[in-house]
């Protein structure tokens, strides 16, 4: 049973990436070109025109956007995953977490392509590889746990309230600014600053930037706290999906 599910998730992920590649002329190129174009937009706006940050601003922005884009696509794609498969869910009994998980794994594969490009860009800009890179896998696991938790929650909710999908994008845009993706949060005044610092994404971005730009090891205590929060969010999201499972086959699509 478990073996079978692993095969199903693995092959569905492959199928998802494969069809996405077949859907456009340039296929694979877009996985990297699309986020690169978005980063260029932000860089032009905040780096060149508004002259927001100091000398480190461009790598600061690139790292932030790369990781954020991964989280964002996981959440939006997972949110649609059960809703768009309601027809299938009415015909076959499957653990429903398979659908959002497949989407998020596909997004993770795409993230690795973009991340490889980011590394090259950072090296060219004078931020060489360093030993703190060894902490990156741990940081990424925690990022995935957190994104997956929110993703499962959205996947469970959207079929009941499809209207939510008009709201998700806007909420995520606000969340992006509040997570310190575009601006550093140390310009924010207390007590708001401490409240914003509770957001796991802010801490995870700080850790990623420390590693990639300054060769700094993460703040282990802060990372530990964020790991616990993310694991709890992920477990809660999964639990909701399992809990709601009997109700989806009865929903009108």
């Amino acid at each position, binding site marked *: 049973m478990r073996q079978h599910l692993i*095969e*199903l998730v693995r092959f569905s992920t492959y199928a998802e990436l494969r069809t996405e590649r077949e859907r456009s002329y340039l296929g694979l190129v877009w996985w990297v070109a699309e986020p690169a174009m978005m980063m260029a937009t932000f860089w032009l706006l905040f780096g060149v025109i508004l002259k927001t940050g100091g000398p480190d601003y461009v790598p600061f922005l690139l790292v932030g956007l790369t990781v954020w884009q991964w989280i964002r696509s996981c959440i939006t794609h997972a949110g649609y995953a059960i809703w768009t498969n309601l027809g299938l869910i009415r*015909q*076959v*009994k499957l653990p429903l977490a398979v659908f959002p998980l497949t989407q998020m794994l596909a997004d993770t594969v795409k993230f690795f392509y973009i991340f490889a490009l980011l590394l090259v860009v950072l090296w060219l800009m004078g931020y060489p590889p360093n030993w703190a890179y060894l902490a990156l896998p741990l940081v990424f696991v925690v990022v995935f746990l957190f994104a997956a938790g929110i993703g499962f929650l959205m996947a469970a909710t959207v079929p009941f309230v499809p209207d939510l999908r008009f709201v998700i994008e806007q909420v995520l845009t606000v969340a992006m600014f509040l997570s310190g993706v575009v601006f550093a949060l140390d310009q924010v005044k207390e007590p708001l600053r401490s409240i914003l610092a509770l957001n796991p994404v802010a801490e995870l971005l700080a850790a990623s930037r420390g590693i990639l730009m300054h060769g700094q090891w993460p703040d282990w205590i802060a990372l530990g706290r964020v790991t616990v929060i993310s694991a709890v969010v992920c477990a809660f999201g999964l639990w909701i999906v399992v809990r709601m499972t009997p109700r989806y086959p*009865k929903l*009108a699509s």
Partner: protein
Amino acid sequence: MTRANRPMSDDVLVELDHVGVAFNAQRRLSAGKFWALEDVSLKLRRGERLGVIGRNGAGKSTLLRVLAGILVPDRGIVRRTPASCQLLALALGFLPNLTGRDNAILSGLMLGLRQREIVARMPAIAEFSELGDFLDQPISTYSSGMTMRLAFSVAIQIEPDVLLIDEVLAVGDAEFQEKSGTALRERMRQGHTVVLVSHNEKELAKLCDRLLWIEHGKSMLEGSRDEVFAAYHGDLHLVGSPPSGAI
């Protein structure tokens, strides 16, 4: 609620005890409930071929989905042994940009087969679907007949303990209908446990040894083929034209 607490007699695979399933009528905050199944009881034994008859909207398809474990009843009890119950679903999970071969694997996995089992049966799928070299083309290039041939060839590979069939005895053009109908009848005669929903009484008479008659979500009679047919026809004759209504 759906798990077996009480031991069942050896050969009963699934037992429904006064089962009812309700749907919300509309996507509204205060929608009323609609009972697609009200009160159905049945015992499905190993090796049995059970036919389900009843007019449109009687709840036959809903019943199959309860047996498959997809719908959880809102009242009554389902007792089941660990036996797997699978609805014969065509083109499950098919993606248009994927090749026929990849779609066969994806669909087979969703129907509960292991990947190596599907790969091992790929020659049989290729032969039965008559797709030849098209198997490695994306199915968006297929005609609808070709897609249905592939879908049927994959679905017929599944081997659950209980096979649930909802009116898909024949698909495709006349020639393939003949072929797919024969293959399915062959599968049913091999001693599998089957539940078959059909409007085709001739088909039911040929393939099933027992029948369940349901009406307005209630089981009217379960018994031998001839006994149930007799009662059903008597009732049809009394009532006259069947009531309208959709599931």
